[in-house]
């Protein structure tokens, strides 16, 4: 601000009064709005997550979120736990574990793609996928979210473990459009090669990390039905 005219000292008290007064008022307003909308926002978040989980695990009727502890055990996620290393277990109407919704992320054509995919543990397949976040080109790369032929790859994608139980029996591999012959291959999309290959690689990495750990500790999930 420009200096006060000579002979007239800027008075400090009105400045403090104004700043503190306005600050207090604004603070109260924000707290009030937060109190009022907070529960509703939390409910929206939980509903959005459940919708996504039920979409990738069509057999599930309820879900619980777990987190990975010490790189080997799973515990139900408590309030305020860190938001990384999470898996979401889905249960059917009888409370039996039907599978898990796993997250994966990796580089797409434009930016990081973040996906959620369902792992049905009985027949050891991926049964559904949903893109949570992507910035792929509209009309081209974003067909990974809409192309029915591509999404059909994930109706029953083979992710069995090998005999040692520490790695996938067959890595998920991207192939050219229309050349899928094995249950662990992912058909690409013509014109969206990079994005579809990225999805296959993200799935492969995430599955190779999570599935051996999950199968080693299946009881962690069974013991914690909602």
């Amino acid at each position, binding site marked *: 601000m420009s200096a006060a005219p000579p002979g007239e000292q800027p008075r400090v008290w009105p400045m403090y009064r104004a700043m503190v007064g306005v600050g207090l008022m604004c603070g109260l307003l*924000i707290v009030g709005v937060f109190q009022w909308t907070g529960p509703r926002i939390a409910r929206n978040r939980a509903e959005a997550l459940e919708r996504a989980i039920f979409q990738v695990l069509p057999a599930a009727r309820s879900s619980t979120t777990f987190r990975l502890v010490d790189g080997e055990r799973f515990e139900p996620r408590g309030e305020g736990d860190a938001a990384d290393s999470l898996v979401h277990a889905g249960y059917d109407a009888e409370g039996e574990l039907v599978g898990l919704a796993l997250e994966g992320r990796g580089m797409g054509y434009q930016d990081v793609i973040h996906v959620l995919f369902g792992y049905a543990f009985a027949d050891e397949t991926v049964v559904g996928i949903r893109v949570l976040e992507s910035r792929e080109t509209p009309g081209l790369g974003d067909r990974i979210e809409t192309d029915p032929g591509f999404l059909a790859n994930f109706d029953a994608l083979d992710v069995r473990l090998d005999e040692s139980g520490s790695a996938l029996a067959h890595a998920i591999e991207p192939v050219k459009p229309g050349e899928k012959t094995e249950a662990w291959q992912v058909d690409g999309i013509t014109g969206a090669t990079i994005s579809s290959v990225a999805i296959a690689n993200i799935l492969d990495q995430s599955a190779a990390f999570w599935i051996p750990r999950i199968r080693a500790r299946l009881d962690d999930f069974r013991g914690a039905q909602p």
Partner: protein
Amino acid sequence: MSDESVPTPGTDEFVKGLWRENPVFVQVLGMCPALAVSNTARNALAMGLATLFVLVGSNLVVSSLRHFVPRQVRIATYILVIATFVTVVDYAIQAISLDLHKALGAFISLIVVNCLILGRAEAFASRNHVGTALLDALGMGTGFVLALLSLGAVREILGSGSLFGVPLFHEGFQGWVVMILPAGGFFTLAGWLLLFNWLRERRATRLAALEPVGATGGGR
């Protein structure tokens, strides 16, 4: 900070923002949200309404506090007030729809730095009565909503062949992908600016032709 502004008819404070001093098409303010989130009519409308709310709220508060806040701290106070209303809008949108919040992304928080809002607070609300400031904010905000909506509508119709998500064309419509991308925002904005300037220029020439030589220019 005097109240010596020329008294004008109240409706004019409202109407000027719609067309003559339209914030986007004439003043070219608030370009960041206007270009970034006008890819669908729904996003554009939501962003416009959020801005309208912040504008009305901050203009009201700034105008009613205009004798209370000393000159030296006025900008800091305005920013504080504007940021508060932006936070309120942010929570409100999250409570209404998370999908909408995701689509608008960081641009909700960026309403804070929208020149339009600080500009109205500094140039108008801090010098006028609460009622006039309210009319001004409503007019400018509505002008902003209309501008964003006209950008969003063009981009959505050409880019996805729909309006507010409702398909407008037969099956097999070829979308113009570029219209959904940032480049399409620039093209659409340029098109509207061209139209506006052409209309204003035509009007100015007509008025000049009508007015007798030497008359004082009172026409707008």
